[in-house]
């Protein structure tokens, strides 16, 4: 076993340690906090690179996988192991999380510079990194779950970081409770898995629950509704992923989570944590892909679980993308975009396997982190303004930010050939196109891509082009002249280098990363699956691939063009002006702006039902159970009263009388002790006679 496998635990342990030290230090030790957090991630990044290099060069030998386990706790006769695994999936996630995390930490130093709770922020960030890295290396569903919950906790803490804002506190609560619904499924799935297989280790030299012996065993057992155990367990685990990755219908928390500081949005709610759900599905992919042995029926080379994953992903993709079209908050647009992209990843996992979904996860992490940090830079530059209607013309004020933001936008939109998003999204669409079950997900994906290009163009046009509208008061039109009056201190400004440098680095990756997964050189696919591959440009020109690439490019250009036509050509003049789409289609715009009224539907159904149930429980508790308790109380009090009476007037009185009698008898008997020795001697004589008479009488009887 190579050394890095044994010492893989160091990668999450370092940030955990850093978080501990920051937590116990006295405020304000800003430098210490930032150094510790960034330093622990930097060391973690180096270790991750070592781990990554160890997994390289195994093409054609099957998947490289080494595990390290140690016994942790004993139930009855069974030991539960904890441990970690090093395989390409882990390695690529480690590198991504530590690298993106490190850049975002550095960015945060600038972004949070004026916050008085700087240390608390970095403590939480480091703790989050520890949890996330724990999720990544875990070779055990239990360890995975623990880390998963740490991640959930830090997410809650960081969304509500500005807890004095009621909206932030509410959003934190919402995120926590919504993801908890999914986690319940995950927990049930975990318990069921343990009951079925007796192990929670993913890989364990043939005995793990993701290895064929156990999988076949689970697949052959039929449970509720005629489903195989593997399907039901897979579904329950998938529920956890749905909650964490903001999939429809549990996506509602993710847009609200934007109440947190922007670096948090970038790190947790775009690049890493929300991707943990996708990673979970990738981790248990063997379980999802285990055919329930219903060969010869309608399932061709897929499984019920993967079909569910695909549909959920496809619906989420189109759903998020369409809502993003009608949002005005710069971060909310990105949030719905994230929801939509996570849907693509799920769909990729469903239709094309681990490599397809994970490739999009990695590329998305970079360009979405870039976009979020870019939006952070914009917000920072515009004095904490988040409404795109009040921005405009920032190209002039923030050239660096504009440049990198454009890169991110093109990557997300999937601009052909030069941007990573194009390749990864194209692969998903390609797989969806070849999916044997249905063509609808493919069509949904294409429509989503159109929307994606459109809303990103809209956003960039509103933020960076036209004129700055930040000086206008909402509802006061034509303050145009004033807005250009002077370069006052209220004008937007470019962010400091500590913020822009990470942006530039991320932008570089947003472009370059695409080339590790093109059809011509499918390195990423080969790396994850351990299969042979070679560089072959002719793959690009194969009819299926080429046609699809052209179609995809056409969709992107349509979206970009439409967006530019509607928003770029005629820049928005005032803040209060109606949106172009709103003017054209007020009804649809309303629906989209209100996110299909999902929150309202939940408000009207689940939450109202919950409130009713709470009321009912309260009523029952107050009157039925409370009444019963009161009844018991009154009976008890009555009995107690009765007992007291009995006690006072019968038992105690009797006892007291008895005691009194004893005492008096003692007094009487002590009279025997006259103190006169004559009496004493007489008593002996009497006793002698009495005893002899007693004995003789007894003898006769």
């Amino acid at each position: 076993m190579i050394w890095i496998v044994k010492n893989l635990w160091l990668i999450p342990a370092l940030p955990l340690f850093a978080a501990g030290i920051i937590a116990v230090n006295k405020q304000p030790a800003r430098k210490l906090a930032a150094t510790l957090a960034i330093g622990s991630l930097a060391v973690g990044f180096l270790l991750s690179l070592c781990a990554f290099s160890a997994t390289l060069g195994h093409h054609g030998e099957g998947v490289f996988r080494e595990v390290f386990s140690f016994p942790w706790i004993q139930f009855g006769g069974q030991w539960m192991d904890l441990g970690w695994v090093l395989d390409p999936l882990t390695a690529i996630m480690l590198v991504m999380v530590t690298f993106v995390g490190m850049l975002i930490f550095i960015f945060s130093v600038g972004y949070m510079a004026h916050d008085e709770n700087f240390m608390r922020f970095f403590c939480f960030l480091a703790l989050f990194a520890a949890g996330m890295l724990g999720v990544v290396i875990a070779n055990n569903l239990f360890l995975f779950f623990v880390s998963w919950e740490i991640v959930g906790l830090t997410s809650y803490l960081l969304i509500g970081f500005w807890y004095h804002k009621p909206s932030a506190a509410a959003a934190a609560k919402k995120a926590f409770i919504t993801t908890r619904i999914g986690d319940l499924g995950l927990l049930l799935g975990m318990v069921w898995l343990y009951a079925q297989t007796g192990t929670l280790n993913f890989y364990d030299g043939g005995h793990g629950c993701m290895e064929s012996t156990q999988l076949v065993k689970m697949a052959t057992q039929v449970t509720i509704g005629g489903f195989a155990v593997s399907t039901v367990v897979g579904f329950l685990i998938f529920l956890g992923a749905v909650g964490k990755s903001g999939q429809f219908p549990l996506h509602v928390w993710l847009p609200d989570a934007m109440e947190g500081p922007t670096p948090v949005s970038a790190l947790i709610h775009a690049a890493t944590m929300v991707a943990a759900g996708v990673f979970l599905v990738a981790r248990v992919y063997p379980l999802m892909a285990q055919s329930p042995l219903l060969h010869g029926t309608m399932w061709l080379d897929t499984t019920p679980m993967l079909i569910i994953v695909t549909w959920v992903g496809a619906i989420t993709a189109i759903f998020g993308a369409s809502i993003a079209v009608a949002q005005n908050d710069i971060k909310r647009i990105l949030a719905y975009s994230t929801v939509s992209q996570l849907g693509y990843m799920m769909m990729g996992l469903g239709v094309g396997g681990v490599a397809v979904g994970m490739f999009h996860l990695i590329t998305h992490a970079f360009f979405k982190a870039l976009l979020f940090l870019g939006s952070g830079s914009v917000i920072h530059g515009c004095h904490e303004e988040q409404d795109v209607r009040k921005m405009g013309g920032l190209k002039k004020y923030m050239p660096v930010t504009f440049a990198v933001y454009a890169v991110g936008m093109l990557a997300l939109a999937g601009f052909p050939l030069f941007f990573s998003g194009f390749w990864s999204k194209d692969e998903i669409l390609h797989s969806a196109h070849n999916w044997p079950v249905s063509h609808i997900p493919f069509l949904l994906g294409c429509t989503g891509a159109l929307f994606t290009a459109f809303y990103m163009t809209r956003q960039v046009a509103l933020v960076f082009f036209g004129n700055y509208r930040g000086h206008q008061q909402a509802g006061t039109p034509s303050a145009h002249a004033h807005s250009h009056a002077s370069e006052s201190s209220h004008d937007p400004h470019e962010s400091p280098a500590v913020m822009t440098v990470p942006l530039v680095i991320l932008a570089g990756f947003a472009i370059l990363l695409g080339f590790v997964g093109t059809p011509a050189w499918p390195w990423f696919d080969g790396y994850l699956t351990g299969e042979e591959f070679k560089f072959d440009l002719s793959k690009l020109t194969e009819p299926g691939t080429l046609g699809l690439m052209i179609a995809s490019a056409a969709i992107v250009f349509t979206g970009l063009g439409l967006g530019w036509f509607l928003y770029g050509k005629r820049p928005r003049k005032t803040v209060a002006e109606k949106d172009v789409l709103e003017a054209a289609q007020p009804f649809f715009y309303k629906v989209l702006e209100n996110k299909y009224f999902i929150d309202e539907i939940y408000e009207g159904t689940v939450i109202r039902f919950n409130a009713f149930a709470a009321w009912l429980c309260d009523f029952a508790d107050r009157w039925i159970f409370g009444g019963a308790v009161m009844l018991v109380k009154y009976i008890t009090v009555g009995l107690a009263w009765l007992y007291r009476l009995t006690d006072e007037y019968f038992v105690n009185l009797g006892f007291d009388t008895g005691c009194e009698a004893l005492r008096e008898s003692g007094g009487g008997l002590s009279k025997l002790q006259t103190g006169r020795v004559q009496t004493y001697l007489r008593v002996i004589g009497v006793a002698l006679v009495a005893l002899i008479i007693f004995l003789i009488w007894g003898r006769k009887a």
Partner: protein
Amino acid sequence: MNTVNYLEILRLAAPETIVTVTVLIVLGADVTVMRGKSIAARFNVGALLSILGCIFAALLAFTRHTEANLFNGLMVVDPSSDFVKVAILALTVFTILISTSARFTDHVGEYLSLILLGTIGLMFLVSTEDLLMVFIALEFASLALYILTAFNKHNEKSAEAALKYFLFGGMSAAFLLFGFSLLYGISGSTNLREIAVGIAGKGFDPLLLVALVTTIIGFGFKVAAVPFHLWAPDAYEGAPTPSAAFIGSGSKVASFYVLAKIFTLGFVGAEGSAVWHGYLSGWTPVFAIVAALSMVLGNLTAIVQSSVKRLLAYSAIAHAGYMLLGVLSNTPASASAMMFYVITYALTTIGAFGVVMVVEEATGGDAIKNFAGLSRRAPGLSLCLLIFLLSLGGIPPLAGFIGKFFLFSAAVSAGANLGLLWLVILAIAMSAVSFYYYLRVLKAAYVEDAPGEAPAIKVPLLTFLALVLLALLVILFGCVPGLLTQFL
């Protein structure tokens, strides 16, 4: 009769001989070397010599494993009697230790010598199976005890108590001698085993019944059982406290041992039956009556006492009742339970009297009100008192509890068809009553406040050492009774 080998006698009576020599040394040292020294010094030196002698004698008795029978049962040595001698010597040591701080006399040598002489009498008492020897040893020990009772010459109550004790003792001795003579007349022997053979088949000769009752009177006086107890409260109250402790401990152990011996060896076939609805004339029903009376009268009368020494006297009467239960059950288990009980009781009683003595010296009286606020004035002392009184009451895990447990369970299993259950139930009910008066003393010590100025009581070191040791023994025998029962 064979020729007398005096060396053999000396060898077998070596423990008694050592104590006798100790008496001479103590007496001699006190009148020569220690003449003119302070009373404290004389007490310390005398006590040291006495204790060394006792320990030497006890070690000898404890380590020899001899069985011998001289002169047809006049002198009997066996491990059982040797162990009782060890117990008596230990009790003597404790009595001497608590006497060292006593200031009622300046005749130190004589006082210590009398305690040792009483001890010698008791030792001879337990190592004989002959009526004559029993009587002589009993009278020898009793004479020493009469004098010890009268030893406080500044207190006329002491003299009065001694006189009452002496008259009562003389009367009882007369009855005892009368009974013994009848026994000799009926059976033609003074040896217990031969008496048993001699009275067998005599049925219930009225003369035998009279002998039975008079013997019981003689020993009933020694163990202070109702109705032969009347001397005890007066004597305990009037006597100097260490004397009372000695009367209540060492004397009691020896008396019970020899009482059980006489009746179980000498009156075989005349047991009768004391079982409920199965009464048969004999010595057990008489004991049953005496035991029941002792338990009831002792416990009830103790309730109304205001003097702690009198209270302890009535408590002694009650305990004698419990112990008689062990005698009348008449099984090996009950005999060993009775010996366990009487030894642990004796240890506890010396402790209790020791505490009373300290309080008496400090406050000038032994009334319950003199104990008020003791826990604040002398915490260690009152903790010892707590242990002793709770053990007397029978609270686990103290020796008194396990003793009662052994005794009562032996009694329950002795009579056929739980026939002695009535006595056991009475005993348990009466021990419940006994808590009342023990707790009265403890309430004064722990709850009530001392009236007026109450300086801390200075406890003499040797006495305190003895009390702590006794308390530890009470706890130890309560937790590990096997340490003691293996010898019984």
